């Protein structure tokens, strides 16, 4: 088997990598895109970051067509991309050229009170807290699975979820007043 893999020509590798990336895109682009849009608060940026994830998956598969790429790997890559984007944004915010993230990109049908509350809260959270909240309640992973993706313990994920919810609760209260 190993020998077969080694015998793979460059064309085969590319074809396999393309086919596997294709199926990853079909299965995960909606989930990853939505997760990333919640993380960064902007649809265009989320699309860029989603592309980046699949691009690095493709590069990975081209180097090793048999490599297993789990949902965890994709979410980890997505989270890292979002965090580094948010970090850059925070640095650029100090410059006068700051461009506020466009809230109008949120379509009308998603402007439910819940959707807006959540997005406002997410905008105020440190990225590690929003990632913990979104990977669990939004993407549907357990705190243990999310912990693997974030490189921490499940107890830390639960704490971050709790802290994130504290902010969300404050915002909901403000909204009611």
């Amino acid at each position: 088997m190993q020998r077969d893999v080694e015998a793979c020509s460059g064309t085969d590798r590319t074809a396999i990598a393309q086919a596997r990336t294709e199926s990853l895109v079909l299965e995960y682009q909606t989930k990853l895109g939505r997760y990333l849009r919640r993380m960064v608060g902007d649809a265009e940026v989320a699309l860029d970051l989603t592309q980046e994830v699949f691009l690095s998956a493709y590069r990975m598969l081209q180097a090793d067509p048999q490599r297993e790429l789990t949902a965890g790997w994709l979410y980890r890559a997505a989270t890292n991309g979002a965090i580094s984007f948010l970090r850059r944004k925070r640095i650029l915010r100090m410059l006068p050229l700051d461009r506020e993230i466009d809230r109008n990109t949120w379509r009308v049908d998603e402007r439910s009170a819940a959707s807006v509350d959540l997005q406002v809260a997410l905008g105020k959270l440190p990225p590690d807290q929003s990632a913990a909240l979104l990977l669990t309640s939004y993407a549907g992973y357990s705190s243990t699975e999310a912990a693997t993706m974030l490189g921490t313990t499940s107890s830390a994920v639960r704490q971050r979820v709790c802290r994130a919810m504290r902010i969300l609760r404050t915002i909901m209260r403000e909204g009611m007043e």
Partner: protein
Amino acid sequence: MMTSRDDCSAAQALAGAIALGEASDSERDRYRAHLAGCAHCVNELGGERELERVMAVVVQARDDERWEPDIRKALARRHAPRRAWSWAATFAVAVIVVAGFLAGEKKPQATAPQHTVSAKDVRAIAALDTQTAPRREGRAESLVVGSAVPVTTAFAVSVDQRGIPLRCSITKSSGYSAVDRAVCRAALQVHYRPPSHH
């Protein structure tokens, strides 16, 4: 009852577990016991009901989500300037009246029939060609359209006995390699009148 900072941080993890629906009965008991003695956490974190109510907002937002991201459409949109150029190139090629020298497989024919490459054929071919053409050439091409000067390309096609084109070569370049390539590609798509036998 005094509570330490460690207790409160453990309570946060318990609150997170309750919100996520992961807490066991004993974990819920421990959380209740902590809240009973810690007014700070009652205020900061809230009871189980409160946690679940806040979590319901997140779940509701998730269920309201309608966005269907499509990274392929996004890629196409991002390359819009390039796509606009491909239409421009199509136009440029479509207005060309090409002088074609139809040649036999070995001996070139003396007569040189004029071929007008149909816009329909060329559009498909030019689009295909522009996908592979480097951007640098793309800019040059759009200049041709901008100045609205028709360009002429002369080409020779070798056909077999059935009139199927075998080879195309440019005998007089238009000066734009992308146009030349597109013309040759189009020329190879046409079925020719078979060469007459003497």
